[in-house]
C-alpha cells in the first residue's frame, strides 16, 4: 500500500456538498470548492496561534503542527443549508482538544481544550440532532453544544479507549467501539446492545439512515460487518461484505419498505487503496451473496508507481440518493491530494466504473511531464479546423426544390393530403420513402404513362417480336426500304406469316420501340395485300380493332399538337431573340408564370413526340 494509502487523510463534505474539507496529516486544512474544483481557503495554524502555550509543552511536535485525528462538518441551521455561515467544521486533535471552525468566516468558533486526555478518536453528529458527540482514548463520550462549544454532558462508555463512535440520524442511539461495539441510549446513557466480532479497533462505523443497521469496519480487516440494531442484546454480525483491502469509509442506505421498487440495502465503501466498493441487495440474504461493484481510477497512471509519489485515489464519497432500483447517485472526490476532482456518478450494481484522473495542477518531475505532454497531444485537445472551402462541402447533396414534381405529387396525393400532413408532425420515415418513390416516378414520363395504362407493359413481347422480325426474310425495319421492295417482300409472304408480322408490327408501334415512320409502311402494305385474308380470319379482328383505335386516337390529338408545336416554335423564336439580346429581364412573377407554362408543356410534349408519327399515319391512312 505504502504511499497510496489514504488511511491518514481526513475528509469531509459540507452538508450541502458544495465544499470539501481535506486534511492530510500536516495540520493544514484545505477547503475545496466542489463546483469550481478550486481551492477556496486553507487553514494552516488556527489552533497554534490562539493557544501557543499548549503546544510549546509538546516538544515532539513542530510548532505549527497539530495532529488532527477526526473531522466532521455539521450544519447548524437546517433551513438555510445554502448559507455557509451556518455550518461548522468540527475537529478533534491527538492532544485531546475539540475545536470548531466557522469555515465561511475563516475563524475559530470555539475550542475545548483537553476534552479527552490522550486524544480525541471520534466525533459524531446526528443529522437531526443538535449536539456534537466526541469520544476519546479515555473511554469517555462528551456531549457538546455546537453553537457555543459548552460541554453539556459526559459519560463513560468504555473502560478502554474508544476507537470509533457513531450516532443514529435521529440522535437517539449512540454506538461506540473499542474492539467490542456497544450501543447506548443517548438520553439516559444506558447500554442497549453489545456486538462482538471485531477483534481489532474499529476504524469506521455508521448507522443507516433509518437506524436499523450499523455498518462497521476495523483496522486490518478486509470486510465490512453489518449489524442489526433491533435484535437481541448480544449479537454477531448479520452480514459480512468482503473487500480486497480494509475499508476507511462506509456509507449506507436502507429502505425497508417492501412496496417501493428501490427497497433494499445499499452499501458504499472506500478501501485503503482508494477504490470504491458498492453493494446492493434487496434484503440481507441477497446482500450477503452479492458481488461488489468497483469504482476505481484508471490504471494507466500507475506508470508512476516506481516514482515515490502519491497515487491518485478516491478519497471520499457520499451516497446522495437512490436513482432507481440497484443504482445510486454518488458524489465522489478523487484524483491526487494536491488537486482533487469531484464528480457525481450514477453507480449501477454490477457495472464497474473506471475513472480517469486528470493531472491538472500537478507539478510533475521531468520524466513524467514528457510522457504527459505526449499524452496530451493524443488527447481530446486535438482541434479540427475547417476553413471556408471545407465548410462548404456537405456530405449530403443540395436539396433541390422541384416545383414541377411537387405539383404533380400534389395532384396525385390530393386525396390523402390531410392524412399525410397529420402524420407529418411525427414525421414517419415511411412518409419520406413514399415521397421519394413518387418523385423518382415523376422523373420519367414514360413510367408515369405506363403506370396510367397509356403504355402497354408488354416489353417482352416487343423484344420477342424484334427477334422474330429478323427471322422474316426481307423484313428489315431499320433499313429505309423503297416502297417497291416492301411490296415485293409482303407479297412473297404467306397470309398466315403476314398476319403474324402484322401483329408484331402493331405491338411495336403501340409500344413505340420503333417509330411509326418505320413500322407504318409495312402495316400499310400488309393490309393492302393481305386485307381480304384478314377479313376472313375471326381471330384477327381484335388486333385490327386495336389498330383502328390507335390510329383514331392519334388522329384526334393531331390538331392540338399542331397548335402546340406552333406555340413552341414561337417561344423558341422569342427565346433565341432574348438570348441574342443577352438581357435577363426575368422578373419573379414572369418566371412563375413560365413555370406554369412549362408544366403544361410537359404533358403536351409527350404527344408532341408522337406528332410526327400520327402525322404519318394519318397521311398514310388518308
Amino acid at each position, binding site marked *: 500500500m505504502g504511499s497510496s494509502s489514504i488511511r491518514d487523510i481526513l475528509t469531509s463534505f459540507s452538508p450541502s456538498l458544495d465544499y470539501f474539507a481535506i486534511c492530510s496529516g500536516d495540520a493544514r486544512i484545505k477547503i475545496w470548492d466542489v463546483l*469550481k474544483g478550486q481551492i477556496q481557503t486553507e487553514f494552516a495554524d488556527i489552533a497554534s496561534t490562539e493557544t501557543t502555550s499548549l503546544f510549546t509543552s509538546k516538544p515532539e511536535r513542530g510548532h505549527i503542527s497539530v495532529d488532527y485525528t477526526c473531522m466532521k462538518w455539521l450544519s447548524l441551521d437546517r433551513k438555510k443549508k445554502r448559507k455557509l455561515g451556518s455550518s461548522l467544521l468540527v475537529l478533534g486533535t491527538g492532544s485531546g482538544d475539540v475545536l470548531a471552525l466557522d469555515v465561511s468566516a475563516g475563524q475559530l468558533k470555539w475550542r475545548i481544550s483537553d476534552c479527552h486526555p490522550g486524544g480525541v478518536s471520534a466525533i459524531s453528529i446526528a443529522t437531526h440532532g443538535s449536539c456534537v458527540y466526541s469520544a476519546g482514548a479515555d473511554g469517555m463520550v462528551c456531549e457538546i453544544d455546537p453553537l457555543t462549544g459548552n460541554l453539556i454532558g459526559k459519560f463513560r462508555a468504555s473502560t478502554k479507549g474508544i476507537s470509533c463512535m457513531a450516532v443514529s440520524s435521529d440522535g437517539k442511539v449512540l454506538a461506540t467501539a473499542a474492539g467490542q461495539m456497544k450501543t447506548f441510549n443517548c438520553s439516559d446513557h444506558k447500554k442497549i446492545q453489545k456486538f462482538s466480532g471485531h477483534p481489532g479497533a474499529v476504524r469506521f462505523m455508521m448507522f443507516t439512515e433509518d437506524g436499523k443497521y450499523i455498518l462497521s469496519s476495523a483496522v486490518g480487516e478486509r470486510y465490512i460487518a453489518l449489524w442489526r440494531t433491533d435484535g437481541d442484546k448480544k449479537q454477531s454480525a448479520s452480514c459480512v461484505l468482503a473487500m480486497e483491502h480494509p475499508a476507511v469509509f462506509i456509507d449506507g442506505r436502507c429502505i425497508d419498505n417492501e412496496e417501493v421498487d428501490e427497497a433494499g440495502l445499499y452499501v458504499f465503501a472506500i478501501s485503503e487503496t482508494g477504490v470504491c466498493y458498492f453493494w446492493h441487495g434487496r434484503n440481507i440474504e441477497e446482500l450477503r451473496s452479492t458481488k461488489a461493484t468497483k469504482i476505481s481510477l484508471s490504471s494507466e497512471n500507475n506508470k508512476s508507481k516506481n516514482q515515490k509519489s502519491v497515487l491518485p485515489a478516491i478519497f471520499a464519497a457520499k451516497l446522495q440518493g437512490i436513482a432507481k432500483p440497484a443504482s445510486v447517485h454518488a458524489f465522489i472526490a478523487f484524483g491526487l491530494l494536491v488537486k482533487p476532482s469531484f464528480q457525481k456518478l450514477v453507480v449501477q450494481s454490477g457495472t464497474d466504473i473506471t475513472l480517469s484522473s486528470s493531472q491538472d495542477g500537478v507539478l510533475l518531475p521531468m520524466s513524467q511531464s514528457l510522457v504527459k505532454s505526449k499524452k496530451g497531444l493524443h488527447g481530446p485537445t486535438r482541434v479540427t479546423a*475547417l476553413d471556408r472551402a471545407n465548410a462548404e462541402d456537405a456530405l449530403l447533396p443540395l*436539396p433541390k426544390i*422541384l416545383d414541377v414534381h411537387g405539383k404533380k405529387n400534389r395532384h396525385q396525393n390530393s386525396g390523402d393530403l390531410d392524412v399525410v400532413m397529420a402524420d407529418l*408532425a411525427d414525421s414517419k420515415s415511411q412518409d419520406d420513402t413514399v415521397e421519394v418513390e413518387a418523385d423518382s416516378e415523376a422523373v*420519367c414520363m414514360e413510367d408515369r404513362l405506363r403506370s396510367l395504362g397509356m403504355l402497354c407493359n408488354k416489353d417482352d413481347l416487343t423484344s420477342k417480336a424484334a427477334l422474330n422480325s429478323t427471322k422474316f426474310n426481307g423484313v428489315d425495319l431499320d433499313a429505309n426500304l423503297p416502297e417497291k421492295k416492301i411490296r415485293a417482300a409482303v407479297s412473297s409472304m404467306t397470309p398466315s406469316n403476314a398476319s403474324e408480322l402484322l401483329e408484331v408490327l402493331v405491338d411495336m408501334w403501340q409500344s413505340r420501340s420503333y417509330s411509326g415512320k418505320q413500322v407504318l409502311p409495312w402495316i400499310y402494305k400488309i393490309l393492302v395485300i393481305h386485307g381480304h385474308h384478314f377479313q376472313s380470319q375471326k381471330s384477327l379482328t381484335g388486333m385490327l380493332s386495336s389498330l383502328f383505335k390507335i390510329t383514331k386516337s392519334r388522329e384526334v390529338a393531331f390538331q392540338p399538337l399542331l397548335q402546340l408545336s406552333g406555340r413552341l416554335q414561337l417561344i423558341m423564336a422569342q427565346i433565341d431573340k432574348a438570348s441574342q439580346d443577352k438581357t435577363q429581364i426575368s422578373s*419573379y412573377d414572369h418566371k*412563375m408564370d413560365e413555370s406554369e407554362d412549362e408544366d403544361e408543356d410537359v404533358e403536351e410534349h409527350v404527344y408532341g413526340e408522337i406528332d410526327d408519327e400520327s402525322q404519318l399515319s394519318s397521311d398514310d391512312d388518308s
Partner: protein
Amino acid sequence: MVNMIRGGRSYVSSPPAFSNDAKRLLVCTANTVSIFSTSTALQTSSLEGHTAPVTTVIVVPASSPASNILCYCWTASLDGTIRYWDFSVPELLKTINIKIPIYSMVIPYLLGNEKQPYLFAYVSLKVTREIDSKKHNSGQICKCNLTESRLVGGMTLAETKVPEPITISSSGKYLGITKHQRLSIWKVPDTETERITLKKITLHHTKRMTVHAFHPIQRIVAAGDSTGRILIWRGFGDKTFTSDEGLVSGKIPSNDEEKPGVRDNDDADSCTTWHWHSSEVNVLFFSSDGAYLYSGGKEGVLVVWQLDTGKKKFLPRIGSPLLCYTVSPDTSLSSISCADNQIHLLKMPSLEILKSISGIKFSCSLPEEYESFGSGVAFDHSSALVALRTDNYCVQFYSLFDDLGISEVQVCERNHQPGDDVTVVVTLVALSQDGSIMSTVEVKLAEEGIGGLICLKFWASESQNKKFTLSTIIYEPHRDARISAVAFHPTRRVAVSSSYGGDFKVWVCNDELEQKDVMLQSSGWTCHAVGSYKKKAITAAAFSADGSILAVAAETVITLWDPDKNVLLAVIGETLTPIVTLSFVGKSEFLVAASWGSKPQLSVWTMSKLSVSWSYMLHVEAIACAADLSSFVALALLPELSKCQESIGTNFQGKDGVILLFNATDPVPVATWSARKAKGGALAFLQVNPSSIEDNISDGKLPQALLAYMNGDHEYVLFDPYCEEIHELNVIPQKDLVVPEERRQFGYASIYGELPEFELKRNQTLWVPSVPSEKPWETIFSGSSHNLPPLTKLCSAFLESLLEKRTAAVE
C-alpha cells in the same frame, strides 16, 4: 412547493463598507445587504428587509478600540426607507420611512466624536414632480432627522437634474456633490440643529466632473473629470468656511495670480491638474494618512499618486473598469469594485489582491447590429447552469441553484484590456440539451471593411465539470454572412447553424457519423448538409423535441426539413415581420415563433394543419418551452404606449415586461408575472433535480419543472410556474393580468381575420417536396427562379430528361 430562489445580484452597484474589525465586508446586493468574510471571501449572512435595491450602507464607526466588535449599520434604499441594523445577529432595529427613493446617504455625525442631541443624515433623493401633467424626475439633497425619523422640512441643499451621489470627508466636516461642471461643497456645522444653514462654496471646471474626494486632514479636494484629468484644489473655502470659526486667515482676499489654476474667483488657494487616465475617472480616494491619492477608471488600472510629488505607482491588469474603492478601518485592507461584478480585496501597502468576491458577469455591450435574439444566454437545463458571454471574450458558467460562478471558457485567444476598442465580439452561445457540447460564434469586426471574420466553434466537455475543450473551429461557416442562430439536436450530436446569408448548415460530429468505424481519429464536426429556401435570410432554427424535424425560419415563412436527408417537408406561411426565434412546444404539435420589427408578433402554429393557431401583437424577448409539457412561457416587453398610460402605469413601477405562461392550445395565458428590466432577459425551464433543491422545498412535493427568469442585468429568479401559491406571495412577479384586454382582442381578431388567407396559401405552398439530386438535369431547375439559367439551355436539357429513358430502352 418550492421557494423562490434568487441570485445573480450585482455586488458593485453601490460602494461596499467594511465592518469595524475589517473582518467583514457589507455589500449592497439588490434588495439585500450581503455580509462577506474578508478572510475567505465567502458570504456569511445577509440583511433582508428592503423591498427595492439598497443604495447605501454605512457602518457605525467604533468610537474606541474596545467597541470594535459593535456591528451596527445604516442602510438606505430606493424603496424610500432608511434602516438600522445589528449585522452580527443580523437583526433589524429601526426603520425610517421617508417614502422617496434614496440614491445616496451620508451621516456626518457618525464620523465626529462629539455627541449630538439629534442624528442628522443628508440624503440624495429622486423627487418626482408633476408639471403640466408630465412627470419630471429630479434630484434633491435633503436633510433627514434620523432620531425623530423624519425629513427636515424646507432644508433642500441643492437640486440636480439627476440624483447625485454625496461624498463626505472622512472627518465628516464637508459634504460635496458634483453637478456637471461644478463641484459644490458644504461645511457641516459643528453643532447642528434643524434649521441651521450650511455654508457652501462652488468650484468650477470646464469639463464634466465625474467623481471627487476629500483629503482626510487638510482642506484639499480632488476631482476627476470625463477626460481623465484629476484636479486638486488646495485650501478650498478659505474665505467662506474659516471666517466664522474665528480664525484669522493670514491671507488677504487675493487676485487670480495668487491662486494658480483656480477659475472664476473660486474659493481655493490653488488648483493643480494631473493627467494619466485616458478616459473618465471613476475612482478617487485619499489614503487615510492623506499621503496618497488612488485613482482608477475604465482602463482597469489603479493608480497611486504621491500627493506631494505627483509620483505614480500602478496596480495594472485588474481586467475590468474600476467602479469604486473602499478603505477599511484596518489600514492594511481595502477593496476595489470592478465592472465585471467582482470585488477584490487588496492588501494595502503592497497592492496585492488577496481574495475576490465574484458574482455573475454582466451582459457585455455589443455593437447595435450584433444584438441578437435574447441576451446571448444559454441554459443547461439538466444541471441548471447558465452560460453567459462576458466582456473578456469568455463564457462564464454560472450555477443557478448555488448562485456561484463555476468556470469560464475563453472563447478566443486574445487579451482583454478594458480600455481597448472592441474588435472581437462573441455573438452567440448555444448549449446542447445535455450540456456536453457548446457552440460559440465570434465575429471579428471589420476595420474599414477589411478583416472581418466569423468563426463558429464547437466545444466538448467531459463529464459534468464544464471544462470545455475546443473540438472544432470553422472559419467563415456561411461565407461572409453572419450567423443568426445555432441549435442543437435534442439527442444526437447534430447542430444547425443558420445565417442571414440565406442558407443553413447541418453539422454533425464525427462520433455520430462513424460509430461503426473503428479507426476513429478525431471527434471533429463536419458539414452534413446545406439548405436554403429561396435565398432568403435564415433567421432562426429549431429542432423538434424528438429531433425528427428541423424548423427553419426563412424571414417570414417557416420551413420544415428532415434533418437527416435534408429534404424540405413543408412550408408554413407567413408572419408580418421576420421571425427571430422558433421553438417547438414540448412534444406537442405546436410551434412558437416570435418576430420583431415594426409589427412584432408572437404566433403559435399547429403542425397538423400547417397554419397559425393564434397570435398576439407582442414584442417577445424570450421564449422557453418545457421539454415534456404542452405549455410555454414568453417574456414580452410592454409597449411604450401602455407604459405612459396613467391607468396602468401604477402597476408598472419600473417593470417593463411580463412573463406569460401559455398552454399552446389556448391563447389565454395560464399565468402572468410582471418583471423588471425585461429587455435582454432570458427564460428557461429547468429540470428538477431533487438533491439540488431539497432545502428549498417546503412541503416535500417536487415541482414538474422550474422556470428561470434572468433579466437584462443577469439577476435571476427560479420558481415553480405551476404553483398557485407563488402567484400570490410573489415578490417581483405580481399576479396582474397585464395584457390590455382590447389589444389582445385586436391581435387575436386580426389574425382570425387573416385566416382565410392562410388557408389559401396553404393550398398553394403545401407539400413542396424535394429530393437530393441524382441526375444532372434536375439541378438545373432548382433554386430560386431568378437564378435559373437561360431557357435556351433549360429547354434542351428538359427535353433530354423526357427522352432519356426511352432512348435507353433501344438497343
